[in-house]
């Protein structure tokens, strides 16, 4: 999983500082991503989890500048890529790619598999010679486990697992360093999901890739990630390595989220925390902790003072005033 070298300080590939993305809507300003900070080391996988509307996909897109951030810095290999102009950004895109959730919607139905995979190579003028390009396409297809006979097939002829392999081959075409995986296995059945997860693990080792893995499925995120960021309503509420997070979740939301997963075993009995109510609207969110309304441990100052993400242990960050010292709510 982790390409770590003992004794060496891990090298940071990406760092995000005070990242904000607001959308103007008729009802007001939607705070999709609100002051988010995290970093990803070279060769590791950062899992980003949260429920619908928490801002995880938006974060993935803003990091790649597929959406322009409202504010903040995106530092990739030491440089703030938000300062890059169009040409610089286009060169940059070779380094950072994305795999989308829905392999049915993210592939052009009128292009054959070889056309889809060669498109990034054509756009970036990687090969002068068509024969070289086709050689690379065949190589990519074999890397992701697509049979050569499918070279001229169209997406509708294939099942979800194979389509997702095309999406992965396309992302790998330009030999990127960093790939945002936006719910890459959510649309797949479990047996196929496991095949794709194994493939992504192999590719990460083979090509020394760094992943940002976005998912709502905590079991999957735990399986693939070195570190995990939990998001709630546009904020990162907890960030820790997967072991620490699963053994000792600190934020009340993380605790509830982990307890809510149905576990496919009979020998495990966990005390389930049932959260009341729904996620509130991200439009014009009030001051204070965004989890206030659903929290079992809320105190009076949680309503007014926004908790910052602070370090509570080695590389463990929690955005809760009472982390490690939770007391039942009196209100």
């Amino acid at each position, binding site marked *: 999983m982790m390409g770590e070298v003992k004794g060496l300080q891990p090298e940071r590939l990406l760092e995000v500082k005070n990242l904000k993305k607001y959308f103007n809507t008729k009802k007001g300003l939607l705070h999709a991503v609100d002051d988010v900070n995290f970093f990803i080391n070279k060769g590791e996988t950062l899992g980003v989890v949260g429920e619908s509307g928490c801002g995880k996909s938006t974060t993935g897109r803003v990091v790649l500048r597929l959406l322009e951030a409202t504010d903040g810095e995106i530092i990739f290999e030491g440089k703030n890529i938000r300062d890059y102009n169009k040409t610089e950004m286009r060169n940059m895109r070779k380094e950072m790619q994305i795999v989308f959730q829905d392999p049915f919607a993210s592939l052009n139905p009128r292009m054959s598999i070889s056309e889809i995979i060669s498109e990034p190579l054509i756009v970036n003028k990687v090969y002068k010679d068509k024969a070289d390009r086709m050689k690379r396409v065949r190589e990519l297809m074999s890397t992701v486990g697509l049979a050569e006979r499918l070279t001229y097939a169209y997406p509708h002829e294939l099942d979800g697992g194979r389509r997702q392999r095309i999406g992965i081959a396309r992302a790998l075409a330009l030999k990127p360093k960093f790939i945002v995986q936006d719910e890459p296995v959510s649309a797949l059945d479990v*047996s196929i999901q*496991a095949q794709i997860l194994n493939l992504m693990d192999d590719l990460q080792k083979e090509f020394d890739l760094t992943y940002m893995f976005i998912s709502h499925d905590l079991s999957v995120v735990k399986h693939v990630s070195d570190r995990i960021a939990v998001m709630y309503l546009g904020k990162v509420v907890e960030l820790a390595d997967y072991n620490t997070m699963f053994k000792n979740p600190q934020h009340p939301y993380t605790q509830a989220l982990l307890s*809510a997963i*149905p576990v496919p075993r*009979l020998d495990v009995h966990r005390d389930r925390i049932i959260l009341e109510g*729904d996620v509130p609207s991200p439009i014009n969110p009030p001051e204070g902790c965004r989890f206030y309304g659903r929290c079992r441990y809320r105190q009076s100052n949680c309503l007014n003072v926004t908790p910052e993400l602070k370090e509570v242990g080695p590389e463990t960050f929690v955005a809760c005033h009472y982390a490690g010292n939770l007391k039942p709510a009196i209100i």
Partner: protein
Amino acid sequence: MNNKMLLEIKDLAIHYITVDGTVKAVQDMNLEIAEGETLGLVGETGAGKTTTALGIMQLVPNPPGKIVSGEIIFEGENLIGKSPNELRKIRGKQISMIFQDPMTSLNPVMTVGEQIAEVVKLHENVNSAEATEKAKQMLLKVGIPAERSKEYPHQFSGGMRQRVVIAIALACNPKLLIADEPTTALDVTIQAQVLELMKSLKTEFNTSMIMITHDLGIVAEVCDKVAIMYAGNVIEYTDKVNLFTTPKHPYTIGLFNSIPDIESDVERLNPIKGLMPDPTDLPTGCPFHPRCDKAMPICSTRVPANTEVQMGHFVKCLLFEEGVVR
């Protein structure tokens, strides 16, 4: 299981006859559900779970669907062959269904109160005022304030909408509730709320339930027994404890190995190789044999029969069948 049998499915087969060929969506199915019991129906896309549910409700779209053979015996009477009028009295009253997507199963131009009252008026001898009152009670039961009965589905969140669907399904106190992936469209914390609600209402009303799901975690949580489906066949059928402690069929074992386990650290998953077969062109013999790592030469020619490996534990696999040369 001393309880009275509520539903018995015997040798059921449902086919879809299409221009591309005949899809054998359900084959040789035998299941039983006692009063108050919950059966989990588990399988991947295209395994035949939803077709089974539609078959029980007698709602298989015809054409192209056709119940080719078998019996569906509900409280001693075969549902197959009943007239549309008789069936209308059963659906919504004796047997109700919850669908996966609450937005498409609710009527967007009717208030949620009206939608609950509609079922009550249809099946019970009540006037409008009484039905409206009953609708409010049902809303309260599923944890929605009664004053919201005048609101429309779009004014509710996904989890709340699914609660409304549950309220409609349980309004006439049905004997059997069929829930088709009721929480798949919901977030995990909302899923936990809805599952908790379904469990408590099921106990309160002593409803039997068929829970259709692809999530073995949900099975562990709510089901008493489980039927695992693959390519139209129930390939393993037993109570929950047997399934989780001594799964027998290689497909069931493969499913367990494919799920990342949240309770332990597994470096690498051990998925089932290959893909679901084309439903119009199923493999000969055992439909799972091309993907099975225990396949023997005979598996490609001989269709496995339903074998009882131990009391109440049925497996369709030649590894466990007597008189098979291995």
